[in-house]
């Protein structure tokens, strides 16, 4: 795996230095730029007089007060995340379920395709006013907003994945008389899972956007609401802490999904790797 060919064969000491050197190089590569940028931000903003761009030191200092020492983690961040989770999970159930159905039958697919293409193309945020009419301002509306945005990428990717199931596998299943739920789970969903995960990834980023937007529109708690409130009251430093928190959440959720992807698609990455190695040989 080592990129640099190690020429030293003599002595354990040299090998240790080489390993250490590589570890140092890796650490520098991963952490160098982020910390460099933060340091740059810190220094450049240190005596900033601009009202809208407060010094980073102040932002970080008030992060603690604004989010951790107050009740906001429980009262605002948690409800936001719960609504996101509810909408996202519902979208997974609906999207994968309908996607398997639509993808399995050619005629159903042909029937639904134009409508789906149109519905997918509607920018999800414009549905916020519509859903506000139907479901008012409460949690239901926000969960529905997240659901309505997340479902399309999952649905369409599932359809694509189900459509492209390997024909040899399909026929093997038929030969062995595998049908019903076993066929659905082991053949169809399994084969489509790489595409489904792609859909999940797209859906997550849309979902976070919609979580925030639905709260910016109409809410009395939540991350989007709190940040907008800071902005309206010109609490600029607090607003910046909110932006940082939102960024951090986006990053953590993406990481979480990637962990899931790694474990769920281990077979797939292995397959690709071996195909690639074959190709290079």
């Amino acid at each position, binding site marked *: 795996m080592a990129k640099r060919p190690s020429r030293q064969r003599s002595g354990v000491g040299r090998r240790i230095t080489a390993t250490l050197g590589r570890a140092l190089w890796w650490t520098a590569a991963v952490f160098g*730029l982020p910390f460099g940028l933060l340091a740059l931000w810190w220094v450049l903003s240190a005596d900033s007089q601009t009202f809208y761009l407060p010094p980073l030191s102040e932002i970080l200092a008030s992060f603690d007060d604004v989010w951790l020492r107050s009740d906001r983690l429980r009262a605002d961040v948690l409800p936001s995340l719960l609504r996101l989770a509810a909408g996202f999970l519902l979208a997974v159930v609906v999207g994968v379920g309908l996607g398997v159905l639509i993808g399995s039958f050619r005629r159903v697919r042909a029937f639904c395709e134009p409508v789906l293409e149109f519905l997918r193309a509607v920018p999800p945020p414009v549905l916020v006013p519509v859903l506000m009419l139907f479901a008012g301002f409460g949690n239901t509306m926000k969960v529905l907003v997240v659901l309505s945005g997340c479902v399309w990428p999952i649905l369409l990717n599932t359809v694509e994945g189900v459509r492209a199931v390997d024909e040899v596998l399909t026929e093997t299943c038929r030969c062995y008389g595998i049908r019903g739920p076993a066929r659905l789970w082991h053949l169809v969903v399994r084969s489509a899972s790489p595409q489904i995960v792609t859909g999940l990834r797209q859906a997550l980023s849309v979902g976070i956007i919609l979580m925030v937007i639905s709260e910016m529109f109409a809410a009395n708690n939540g991350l989007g609401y709190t940040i907008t409130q800071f902005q309206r009251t010109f609490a600029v430093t607090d607003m910046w802490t909110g932006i940082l928190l939102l960024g951090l959440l986006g990053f953590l959720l993406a990481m979480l999904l990637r962990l899931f992807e790694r474990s769920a698609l281990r077979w797939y990455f292995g397959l690709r*790797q071996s195909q690639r190695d074959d190709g290079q040989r």
Partner: protein
Amino acid sequence: MTRAATAAPPAATAPAPAGRSGGTGRPRGGNALLGLLGFAAFLLVLEAVPRLGLVSANYLPPTSEIAVALGELLGEPRFWTAVTDTLRGWFLGLAIAVALGVLVGFALGTVPVLREFTASTVEFLRPIPSVALIPLAVLLFGTDLRSVLLLVVYAAFWQVLVQVLYGVRDVDPVARDTAYTFGLGRWARIRHLLWPTALPYLLTGVRLAAAVALILAITAELIIGAPGLGNEINRAQSGGAVDSMYALIIVTGLLGVAVNVLARQLERAVLSWHPSVRAEGTR
């Protein structure tokens, strides 16, 4: 270790060899007919649901009434101004994002050290939701076009950059060795080796970015109140003009479809030499 993580994501990156279904010649005309039927059924259901009183017509007017409202909108200059405003924000933002994405992508992709040192930063900044920037945009630029551009460029840039980074890495080893053997210089390598390799990825990135840019442009108008279709939807909603609100939403959907179709046409035109597109044509 890192290869598994950075291997091209399962779908949506490489231009997929379109349509693997069946194998036997399927009746295309029949499919189109079914699709039309599906659309007609969709419209019929939307017409029937409020008429039968399943849903109050105050929340969901029948399709025919929405169509009338849409017809009225088309005659208003105000509507067309909104469409131009939205498209201007979309196009400018997309253009800036693509230009930046290509420049930065090639710079990072061709210099291994740079690539290694920026990977973690890209991975950190990319998932940050662009709506986090809304309050900042409001304070800095108000309802100006610059607010829209800030959000659009931030969201679209990453789509392009990531695809270009994948593309630059995908160079065929034999082609690369050949280029070295023939002594191609740095620019010749970029022009004849990297650019054609990365182009399909770049166009996928442009297609994804175009859709995201439209979403963000309309979001910015909706939330911040910058002039455009999003703002019109907001006005229609708060004014209780439910039918024209639906009509405007349909217009945004049609814009979305148009953007997708355009992006695919562009892809096909620019990549007419590429095996994936050629294979599709011969079927």
